[in-house]
């Protein structure tokens, strides 16, 4: 469990960028999406989501905008920026290389 938490912590930025790239979202939705899509594997300590979002925003990778839901309630939606898109392309490529290398080593050798 602790190992998984460390993995999430180390890759929180990339995970959030991926989700926000697919669709602008607000904090609570992000947590639910992350949990749902990873079938419960990725669980954020909810309070720590906001510092992560604010770090990305301060770095210019995402931008937050207040919008009103159809119910009339305001929510802060996050949008990916051009800089965020460019970083995500690099991160995806790094992940692909890493996964390929890991698979080459971790999979049992075929006879």
């Amino acid at each position, binding site marked *: 469990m602790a190992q998984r938490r460390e993995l999430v912590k180390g890759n929180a930025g990339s995970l959030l960028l991926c989700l926000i790239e697919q669709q602008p979202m*607000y*904090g*609570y939705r992000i947590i639910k999406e992350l949990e749902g899509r990873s079938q419960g594997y990725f669980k954020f*300590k*909810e*309070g*720590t989501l*906001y*510092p992560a979002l*604010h*770090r990305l*925003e*301060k770095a210019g990778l995402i931008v937050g905008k207040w919008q009103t839901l159809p119910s009339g*309630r*305001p*929510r*802060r939606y996050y949008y990916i920026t051009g800089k965020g898109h460019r970083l995500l392309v690099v991160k995806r490529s790094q992940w692909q290389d890493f996964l390929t290398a890991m698979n080459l080593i971790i999979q049992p050798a075929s006879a």
Partner: protein
Amino acid sequence: MTTALSHYLNIVRDNLRLDPLSETAVINELETHIEDELQELKEAGLSEEEAANTCVRLLGSAKLVARQIYEAHSQGTWRQALLASMPHLLFGLTFALNWWRGISWLLVMLVLILSTVVYGWWRGKPTWLFPWLGYSLLPVVVAGLLLLYLPRGWSWLAILLYIPLALWLLYSIAVQAIKRDWLYGSLMLFPVPIIIGWFIAVRLEGKFPGFSIERLHDFTLWIGLSFLVLAVAVAAFIRLRKRQLRVAILIISGLLTLTLVAGYAWSQLGLLTFLVLILLMLSIFLIPALLEPKIRHSGQHS
């Protein structure tokens, strides 16, 4: 909202130490999160109180959340770092390059300091403002010294009026800084022991403003160097994210600079004065830290 959740948000607010606009935005965002969470938990069958307690547990430590959000916002740009260190640099250069002898340069400095302070105050008191704010009090000190040269009777009357007014001004400015973050109060006041140290070390002969300036020549380079150390420390302060590191850089550089003053002018200062200056430096960090909760809470009640 239940008491537990209001209490949670109050702890976050007390520990955020951001500018009022950012602080409100963060609290509003957390409130919307809590609203969604509560609704979902209540729909799942939990009572109001159970839902609130679960929500607090899921959010995690309020202090940790506040600290992490502070760290996300705290780092200033290199431009802000330069702007914040500028008054120390200018003050250092004024002595190192002997510009202090020209009244026109001193007037330029005064106008620059006061206009920068007004601009920064108008822009919502960003972090770079606080070192300038400290130097903006120098004209108040000089005005007090000049009062000594009024005719005898007038001098006492003026001083009796001046002291409460000067103290009120210092208190009001310090309270404004501390209300935002006690560390900004310290950032504003931390050159004070260095200035007092050099003032004692130089031991100007005669009475202000006609004292002999010859002795000052022996110290100008070292005075310049000491303010350069402060400028570097302030630039590092602006660039650092972590609060503990920010406190450490100010205390270490303050003590280092006082040691530099004492090292060069030990015969003029002596051990007792050096120790008093160190105590003054430490109290510049301790007193604002102790006052902050009281000032903040009195501000919330009024």
